[in-house]
């Protein structure tokens, strides 16, 4: 759907809702609609965190409390304007979001879920027990409601305001999630290492997701406090955290309308069962336990399975006939200098005082028997592992110690030995992610969908299609990357690495698992890529491939460089032959006999 159509649609729906609610005239129903809007705000932000970034948070009640109590304290202790207080409350919950995002820099998965759960409980205890400030179960009275023309809002106006908030939140988050940021978040959910290797700043993206969830939840809390003009510790329970999470999971995490569906259905059920709290809780438990088993994609996932559209029309080639230029022009000059690099993993030494130089415009090969330390070398070059000693200089700048994403931005792209594609994303999205670090539209520009951001998005898409054409996968652009056969997945990964606009491309066994025909095709492709201005360093076991296309070969054995030079020279080198085939040493037989 086009952006403008969608905008009109949302405005119409919101206006329709406002019209319908003005006919209600029944406070009970108005209240249900208001709570629906409040929960939608929580769920919409939570969807960014859970559905896109894949971080489970079980402490949203704490953020809800941050917003609610911020507004309560600001308007009761000071003479602050309620609107300003609402704004400040959003900011304060954002800060709390950063606070619970901090542990995510260090821990993952279940640990993080438990930390967020702990945050929620701590806040619950704090507002319950620190009565001097938060009033405990007594609560805080006299919170100033939002005003319009110096009059406090009526219940109807509250509902209208909440509907407007929801519509705006939906539009802004849609802008954000359909472009650069949404892709980055989805990539880090799939594979953080691959994500950082294409230039995504993983931690920053996570913090942003946490803050978005925190701000929407804080606004929701503040709205509730201001509408009731009262807040106490009974609002802040672990069940609220679970409910918010359930809204997203039940509706469909990671889908655009999932939170909406989840909110509408569950709020209605919640209201219907409100007289029997234990039945309510039983239902939530039941849904948590079985919903994901029966419908992993939530309600919207289930629906979209039934109403699956026919596959998108394949992209047609619109690339220009001229060969794609990826790296800078010109040949010669040193691209990468490795000096005296050593790495110890305890007793294992995959690199001992290794030095070599890579020339611009050449195809280099790094070979050696299994366990020679080839992959470790690639991982050190790209910053996934820090060398114990030695220096790695890329384009005259030291690489070791830099974060992975910044090395990618310097112009080093890579593929992985055991494919690390974002399997659930489409082939096109995978390649577009490669260009993440080359896009310059910031958070605000993406959020508001400024023209600059849209232009960048279009340029990236065009570029990605061009690269897919180069590797011959244009017709598969809209298929999920994980559904492709192995050989084609390797090519997708190659295109993704090329999309980072590397000057040096590191390939970790690009021909592994390919048949002879495919290997030969790969050789041709690598030569073509070399002509596009990209220098290549590949780790490879297929000697035919290595000998036929590389200009320069480096041989490692047990972490020691034993030879380097032109392919023919290396092939004739007795030490290389020894490393690969062993030698018939008379002493060895003597040893065996003696033993």
């Amino acid at each position, binding site marked *: 759907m086009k952006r403008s159509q969608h905008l009109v649609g949302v405005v119409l729906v919101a206006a329709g809702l406002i019209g319908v609610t003005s006919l209600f005239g029944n406070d009970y129903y108005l209240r249900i609609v208001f709570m629906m809007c409040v929960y939608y705000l929580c769920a919409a932000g939570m969807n960014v965190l859970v559905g896109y970034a*894949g971080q*489970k948070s*079980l402490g949203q009640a704490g953020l809800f409390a941050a917003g609610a109590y911020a507004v309560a304290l600001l308007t009761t202790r000071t003479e602050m304007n309620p609107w300003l207080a609402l704004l400040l409350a959003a900011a304060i919950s954002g800060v709390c979001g950063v606070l619970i995002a*901090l*542990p995510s820099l*260090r*821990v993952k*998965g*279940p*640990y993080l*879920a*438990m*930390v967020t*759960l*702990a*945050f929620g*409980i*701590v806040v619950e*205890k*704090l507002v319950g*027990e*620190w009565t001097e400030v938060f009033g405990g179960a007594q609560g805080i009275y006299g919170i100033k409601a939002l005003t319009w023309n110096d009059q406090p809002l009526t219940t109807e106006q509250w509902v209208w305001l909440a509907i407007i908030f929801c519509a705006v939140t939906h539009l802004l988050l849609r802008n954000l999630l359909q472009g650069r940021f949404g892709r980055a978040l989805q990539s880090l959910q799939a594979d953080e*290492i691959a994500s950082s290797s294409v230039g995504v700043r993983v931690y920053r993206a996570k913090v942003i997701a946490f803050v978005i969830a925190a701000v929407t939840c804080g606004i929701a809390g503040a709205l509730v406090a201001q509408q009731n003009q009262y807040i106490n510790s009974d609002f802040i329970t*672990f*069940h609220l955290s*679970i409910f918010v*999470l359930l809204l997203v*999971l039940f509706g469909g995490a990671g889908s655009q309308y999932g939170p909406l569906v989840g909110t509408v259905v569950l709020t209605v059920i919640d209201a219907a069962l409100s007289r029997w*709290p*234990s*039945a*309510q*809780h*039983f239902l*939530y*438990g*039941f*849904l*948590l*336990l*079985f*919903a*994901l*088993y029966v419908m*992993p994609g939530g309600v919207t996932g289930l629906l979209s399975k039934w109403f699956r559209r026919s596959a998108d029309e394949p992209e047609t080639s619109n690339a220009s006939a001229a060969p794609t230029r990826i790296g800078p022009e010109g040949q010669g000059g040193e691209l990468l200098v490795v000096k005296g690099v050593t790495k110890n993993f305890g007793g294992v030494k995959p690199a001992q005082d290794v030095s070599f130089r890579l020339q611009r415009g050449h195809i280099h090969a790094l070979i050696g028997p299994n366990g020679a330390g080839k*992959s470790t070398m690639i*991982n050190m070059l790209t910053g*996934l*592992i820090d060398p114990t000693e030695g220096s790695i200089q890329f384009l005259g700048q030291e690489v070791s110690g830099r974060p992975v994403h910044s090395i990618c931005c310097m112009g080093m792209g890579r593929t*992985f*030995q055991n494919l690390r594609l974002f399997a659930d994303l489409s082939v096109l999205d995978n390649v577009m992610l490669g260009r993440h670090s080359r896009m310059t539209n910031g958070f605000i520009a993406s959020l508001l969908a400024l023209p600059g951001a849209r232009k960048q998005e279009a340029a990236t898409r065009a570029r990605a299609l061009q690269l897919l054409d180069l590797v011959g996968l244009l017709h598969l652009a809209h298929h999920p990357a994980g559904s492709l056969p192995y050989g084609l997945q390797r090519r997708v990964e190659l295109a993704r690495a090329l999309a980072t606009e590397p000057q040096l491309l590191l390939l970790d066994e690009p021909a592994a698992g390919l048949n002879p025909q495919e290997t030969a095709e790969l050789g041709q492709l690598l030569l073509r890529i070399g002509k596009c201005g990209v220098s290549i360093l590949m780790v490879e076991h297929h000697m035919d491939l290595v000998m036929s296309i590389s200009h320069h070969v480096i041989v490692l054995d047990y972490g020691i460089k034993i030879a380097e030079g032109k392919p023919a020279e290396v092939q004739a080198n007795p030490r290389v032959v020894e490393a690969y085939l062993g030698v018939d040493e008379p002493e060895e037989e003597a040893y065996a006999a003696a033993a």
Partner: protein
Amino acid sequence: MTEALLQAILSGLAVGGAYALVALGFSITFTTTKTLNFSHGEFVSAGAFIGMSALFLVLGLPVTSTTFGQALPGSGAQLLALAAALGIMGLLGWLLYAIGVRPFAGRPGMAWVMSTLGFGVILQSIGLAIWGPKPVVVPGPLGDAVIRVLGVGVRPQELLTLGVAVVIMIGFDFVMNKTMVGKAMRAVAANGNVASLMGINTNAVMIGAFVISSALAGLSGFLLAPIAQASLFMGLTVGLKGFSGAMIGGLSNPRGCVIGGFVLGVLESLVNLWQAQWREVAVFALVILVLAFRPTGLFGKKLVEKV
């Protein structure tokens, strides 16, 4: 002053013993199945309430009653209640594994977080429907007469909790390190696929892990009930602190988890002397601090992801 301090440390150790049991439960399931029971806290409450119901039944009171009145269960009744708590909790652990963990374990997305959480919510809502939200005073097996140790008054239940916890830890350590069953469990923890190739029934080991872990949670609840009153809400904080203890000590190291549990109990008790409302905050701050410097805990092994 020193007396108050000593008192705090002693009761901290007792509660810490309960935390250590919970922490150990987390560690057992995490190392063998790479999953955690997010409703471990509810299991602690469940243990307390199952023990309590067994006592009611032995005394001839209806299960749904919420007070013992003047009735005092004898030691035979207490032992029976303990057996019931451990047995039923073990069964619940098996049920949880079968319907909440096994369908999701090893798959991406951590759906088991939600399913185990849901299991706990169901348990709690059943409990609420039967007993309501009010806490119940449960008599301890050794009576309530305060014993004086080093001039400090200690309740016998606290000493019992500490003693039982220590005995369980030592026993567990022995089993894990010295017996074939322990070796099988460690093998499954190290690499389940290889372990099954060696003829170890990994499924049975994983079920066993959940059964033991849940029984430990039940035991911890059973021991805590006379100290802190049995409440359906007691579990959440106990479970959370048990997990915090496990994180501080290192989830992958059972001994570390136990130490973490005790440390946490004492810390909490000391903070309590000073300002009760900062108790949870102090615990949380310690966890964050430890995670910031040693993400795998003080005694945990460093995890290396193969690229």
